[in-house]
């Protein structure tokens, strides 16, 4: 096959699957929610959100502790160790909490969503649902999408709070930074409408993108064992790359001074 044909075919395939995924998202979201939907959503919220809490909490704690430790080593060299709180809070709120939460989410909840939907497709459960006259986009896909969209910001808040606690633990309790200046400097530099809200906006965007990728990969896969394993890998790889790429764009838009 000539390289030209190869390139053309790849491009067309990519465009085609992008188009399919956009139609898929529109079809899954474009209908009014019903009471029945709320119950299904609740169930998914539990599996996608609540069950992700332990990994988010542990990662947040350790990342907060590490930033405090590294930050202290650098800042104390300038005699500026009271700026530790500011450093921990800003790096968590603006970058680390949304990004790391989204990466962990893609690995834990995203891959599980892909595999679950893929297996439902492989065992003809989606087909038989269609035959019963129930649209799987409504019944299966839509509650999972909403659960992912809503879980991500909440998990990000958790990550930030626990990370800041971890930073406090290391900075104040262990390294002896003054408690007053830790919180004071933090409060002096963190602006709610800018730092906290922008971080949340990032996490909302990441939540939509990662869940969308995960659910679409599950719905669109080739229903064989190899197809499921490939789709799961794709969810994690595409999800992570999308998060990192979008993070740069969003950061440039939010904090860059053009």
């Amino acid at each position, binding site marked *: 096959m000539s390289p030209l044909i190869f390139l053309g075919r790849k491009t067309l395939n990519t465009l085609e699957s992008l188009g399919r995924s956009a139609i898929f998202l529109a079809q899954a979201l474009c209908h009014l929610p019903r009471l029945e939907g709320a119950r299904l959503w609740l169930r998914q919220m539990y599996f996608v959100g609540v069950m992700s809490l332990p990994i988010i909490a542990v990662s947040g704690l350790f990342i907060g502790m590490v930033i405090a430790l590294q930050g202290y080593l650098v800042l104390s060299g300038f005699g500026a160790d009271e700026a530790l709180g500011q450093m921990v809070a800003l790096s968590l709120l603006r970058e680390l909490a949304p990004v790391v939460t989204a990466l962990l989410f893609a690995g834990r909840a995203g891959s599980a969503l892909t595999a679950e939907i893929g297996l439902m497709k492989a065992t003809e*459960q989606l*087909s*038989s649902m*269609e035959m*019963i006259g*129930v649209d799987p986009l409504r019944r299966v896909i839509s509650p999972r999408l909403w659960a992912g969209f809503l879980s991500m910001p909440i998990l990000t808040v958790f990550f930030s709070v626990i990370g800041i606690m971890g930073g406090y633990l290391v900075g104040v309790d262990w390294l002896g930074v003054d408690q007053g200046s830790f919180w004071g400097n933090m409060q002096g530099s963190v602006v709610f409408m800018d730092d906290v809200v922008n971080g949340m906006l990032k996490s909302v965007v990441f939540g939509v993108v990662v869940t969308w990728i995960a659910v679409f990969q599950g719905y669109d896969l080739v229903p064989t064992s190899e197809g499921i394993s490939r789709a799961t890998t794709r969810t994690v790889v595409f999800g992570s790359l999308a998060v990192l790429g979008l993070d740069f764009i969003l950061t440039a838009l939010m904090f860059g001074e053009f």
Partner: protein
Amino acid sequence: MSDSTLVSVENLHFSRAGRPIFSGVDLEIPKGRITAIMGPSGTGKTTLLKLIAGQLMPDSGSVHVGEDNVHRLSRQALFRMRRRMGMLFQSGALFSDLSVFENVAFPIRVHTDLPEHMIRDLVLIKLQAVGLRGARDLMPAELSGGMTRRVALARAIALDPDLIMYDEPFVGQDPISMGVLVTLIRRLNSAFNMTAIVVSHDIKETLSIADHVYVIADGRVMASGSPASLREAQDPRVSQFIQGKPDGPVPFHYPSKNFYEDILAPSEVS
């Protein structure tokens, strides 16, 4: 289309990944009868059911169910039409996160607003019909293959559909559960006057219950008629299939070049 026909397929063409599966299939499924669609593996019998149900789009040709042209319906109308259909999948396709009871209750719950005690009665009637009333609290993973298919059958008839399609109902069943299924299919047809399409290549069982048989091969209808007429068919391909001879006009070998040349050819594996 006459009044006694429920499903009519006209000049249906369908291909998958460039390979033609159907090239001009015409079928008529009479109301209230059991129609069997038979043919060797890989002739697209399951695909035909999915085309009738509107899960796949044909390249050309049309499928009518009652008054509806299946592939012209909107997404919503299609889902409404499917409420009048039941389909028994080869794998059963039970919802693995719901119990047997909830699986059978599922179509009733989503399509009706019946109170809980009526749903319970309906589900128990259907489970009684397939002999699994006692298994109502089991999860699908705890069922044997034959039981799974019977639960799936109970679910397919939960809303008393006009048309029920069986996709390879006898594959992988032991003789006892095979007998149970044959009896069930026949009893459902006679008791509830349900139209049935049975897709199968188990000749003996299928011929014993069908009123009318279509044999499909090479993308078109090769023969049709009553079971008795097919048993006496003169067409060598039909008689090979009906009598289960290993080789004949329908080749045993997948198309390939001459065996002698192939064996002597230099190895392609390096």
